[in-house]
């Protein structure tokens, strides 16, 4: 990542955090606010990070995928539906229901990505059209089934939305213990202990959030260090060259689009199985498109896309914290009480980033071009 984009990301994150610290300083200590902002940023960046990874695998192999939003929405619905069936109809307890939910979320998203691969790789349909089809299809199917199953008289759940099996539990990552151990070794000052207390819980997150961070590292490794990655990138840059060396272009593209489907599925599961225990129509709310912006701003690299996702995450964390500090916002900052104004931040950032004024990024050369033998 070039310095221009790196400094932009750092600057925006510092700016957003500073605003929250200033606003909230009447109610909380800065350290605590920063720690909670960090944790929230990591959490809300999860669907963006995974969505961006989904896009990276597709587009690095030469298939434009604007259907990530639709795949996420499909996964959110079917994952939630599977969890409810497991829990209320088959009587499983919460944990197995949630795990099956996640698997079904991934499965449904992979099926959507298969549709995209069939349209764009086999039938060489315009890939933007293919992605749009998926987005429209997802809104229609999830909205229709949601109403039919839960709100129609005589339907399976007969107008009563059943009790959901909750959300995935937080996993404890022993950061605090680690920092404390270091504190003891180095003499154990009070400041060190305060830091350990404040930031020790930042990485205590739910499983999909932790998985997203690990997948960023794994994706980087796969794309840039393995045979699979080399071939994927070759197919996205110069498919004919890959073909003349005996690489099956169609197969590489199919499989990468399906990998993209897995990532988008996990992102979808975040909405209904990790973030909140419920489904609402069109609840992904454009996150799939912001993920695409993160992918572009990150120059089609996993770490770049993650950094960009964190910027959007921080913008959303700002919004959440403004609600928390609603009553202590100083008089001159009243504009921040208006949740519509604050809520615009991620979208404004998207627009700034996509204008290209903060450094142009270069897509894979054959991105979006069907391969003709």
């Amino acid at each position, binding site marked *: 990542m070039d310095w221009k984009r790196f400094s932009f990301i750092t600057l925006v994150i510092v700016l957003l955090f500073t605003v929250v610290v200033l606003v909230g300083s009447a109610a909380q200590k800065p350290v605590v606010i920063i720690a909670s902002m960090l944790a929230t940023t990591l959490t809300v960046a999860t669907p963006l990070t995974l969505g961006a990874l989904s896009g990276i695998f597709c587009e690095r192999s030469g298939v434009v995928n604007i259907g990530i939003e639709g795949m996420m929405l499909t996964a959110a619905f079917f994952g939630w539906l599977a969890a409810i069936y497991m829990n209320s109809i088959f009587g499983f307890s919460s944990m197995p229901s949630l795990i099956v939910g996640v698997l079904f979320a991934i499965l449904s998203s992979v099926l959507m990505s298969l549709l995209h691969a069939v349209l764009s790789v086999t039938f060489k349909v315009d890939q933007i059209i293919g992605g749009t089809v998926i987005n429209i299809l997802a809104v229609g199917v999830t909205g229709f089934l949601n109403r039919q199953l839960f709100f129609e008289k005589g339907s399976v759940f007969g107008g009563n939305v059943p009790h959901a099996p909750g959300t995935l539990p937080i996993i404890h990552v022993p950061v605090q213990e680690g920092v404390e151990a270091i504190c003891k070794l180095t003499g154990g000052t009070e400041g060190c202990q305060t830091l350990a207390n404040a930031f020790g819980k930042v990485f205590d997150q739910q499983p999909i959030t932790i998985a997203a961070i690990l997948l960023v590292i794994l994706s980087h490794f796969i794309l840039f260090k*393995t045979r699979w990655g*080399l*071939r994927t990138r*070759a197919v996205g840059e*110069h498919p*004919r*060259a890959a073909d003349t*060396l005996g*690489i099956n272009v169609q197969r590489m593209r199919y499989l990468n689009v399906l990998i993209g489907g897995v990532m988008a599925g996990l992102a979808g599961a975040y909405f209904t199985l990790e973030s909140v225990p419920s489904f609402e129509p069109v609840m992904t709310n454009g996150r799939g498109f912001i993920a695409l912006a993160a992918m572009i701003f990150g120059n089609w690299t996993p770490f770049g896309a993650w950094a960009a996702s964190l910027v959007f995450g921080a913008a959303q964390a700002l919004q959440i914290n403004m609600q928390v500090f609603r009553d202590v916002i100083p008089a001159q900052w009243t504009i921040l009480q208006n949740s519509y104004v604050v809520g615009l931040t991620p979208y404004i950032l998207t627009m700034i980033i996509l204008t290209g004024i903060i450094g142009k990024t270069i897509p894979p050369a054959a991105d979006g071009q069907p391969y003709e033998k």
Partner: protein
Amino acid sequence: MTEQPIVLEAKGITKNFPGVLANDQVDFDLRKGEIHALLGENGAGKTTLMNILYGLYKPDSGEIKVNGQPVVIHSPKDSIEAGIGMVHQHFMLVPVFTVAENIMLGDETTRYGVLDQKAVVRRVKELSKQYSLEIDPNAIVGQLPVGVQQRVEIIKALYRNAQILILDEPTAVLTPQEADDLFVIMRELTRRGVSIIFITHKLKEVLAIADRITVMRAGRVVGTVDPKDTNEQKLAAMMVGREVILKVEKKPAQPGKQVLEVEGLSVHDWRGLETVRGVTFQVRAGEILGIAGVQGNGQTELVETLTGLRPSAGGKIRFSGQDMTGKSPRLLTETGMAHIPEDRQRHGLVLSYPVADNLVLNTYYKQPFGVRGIMQPAAIDANARKLIQDFDIRTPSPYVNVGKLSGGNQQKVIVARELSHEINLLIANQPTRGLDVGSIEYIHQEIVAMRDRGLGVLLVSAELDEIMALSDRIAVMYRGQIVVTVDANKVTREQLGLWMAGAHPEE
């Protein structure tokens, strides 16, 4: 040379594309350690035959033997396994990858699932030493000069243990010096037992390097000859099927007043890079100024700016005595500029329009073709019939889509259109690229005739032979600048080649 064993043999290869018999009972063989040139015009079937040998196409019938054994080649993979490597005319390299990554692609070495870059770099260095092919395995391919990229392609084939190398028009993108380097490499390879099929349409090169020459025409093999027993004239006749005049006959130029003056012109390309940097030159009436240079040294952008298609970033253009910097193509056309564009299919013609409409693309809005915004079919028809006759355009009717015509006839449509109105300057960019010898002959004669009628001609071409044959004065373009302008009869091919490669002219 003693008779070496035959390493590759193709017998009775036939390949039918819808409407075209691309290969008709073609026989071809290659001996160990020889350079066997395959000569023919565009569309003669050379590339089809090679794509069959490399597994990109499947033949309808015929047999291929490698080292005497019949082989079935269904894909490039089979061909690589049989020891055949191909260097395509348009390189099959990923520009953003390193040399090593490009070479290992499809045949990667891994350790614990991780790409073993070091092993590849070591192997590449070995090969480059063994065959004296200098290369930096860690360089990014897109940043290398074309000649070096070609070397990467050759090493890529050797890395896969290719013993038979197919080189498809390898000199098309090279400067004369780079081509000479390539010939040295080719000789070195054959000395080490590699056999080479050398595809080209350039007669001089074949005579210089080949051990045997096979000529193809219209999908058939016309004959195989020894370079000692033939000459350019005979080979050209074999290629075309009739006697051709290779040399352009022209009288000394009689230059008049200046029609085009370019002063300090700078142009940016689509990425905002300055590709034309402060260029100054003049074209006078009754002379041909040739702009020589390897492709991609700013010629495209220069011509686009001169013809009003691209804004300039600095400098002045005076045409017919008026300042025409930044003026529209229509105004330039009406002031008497004719333009034969580099890419005739994209910028010269509307392929899905009939010939008749393409012939009035620059005048359709004026009397007699357009009256108050209404097209006049009768006038357009009369115009088309006249031009088809005058310029000998071979088309079944004026209402056939121009995309259906052959390259030579498409070019004739452009020439007819551009030269049929009142003009005083012709800008011709790569006017004969991809044309057959017969059409080249025609276009060349037409350009000289224009000059003799008192027009100024600006000829841009990457073919040094064409520049040498037609120009009265020659300007050499290198990295966006004109490094030198000389009289055509006071300069040698070799000297021009050096300038094209960036050597500084010493006065």
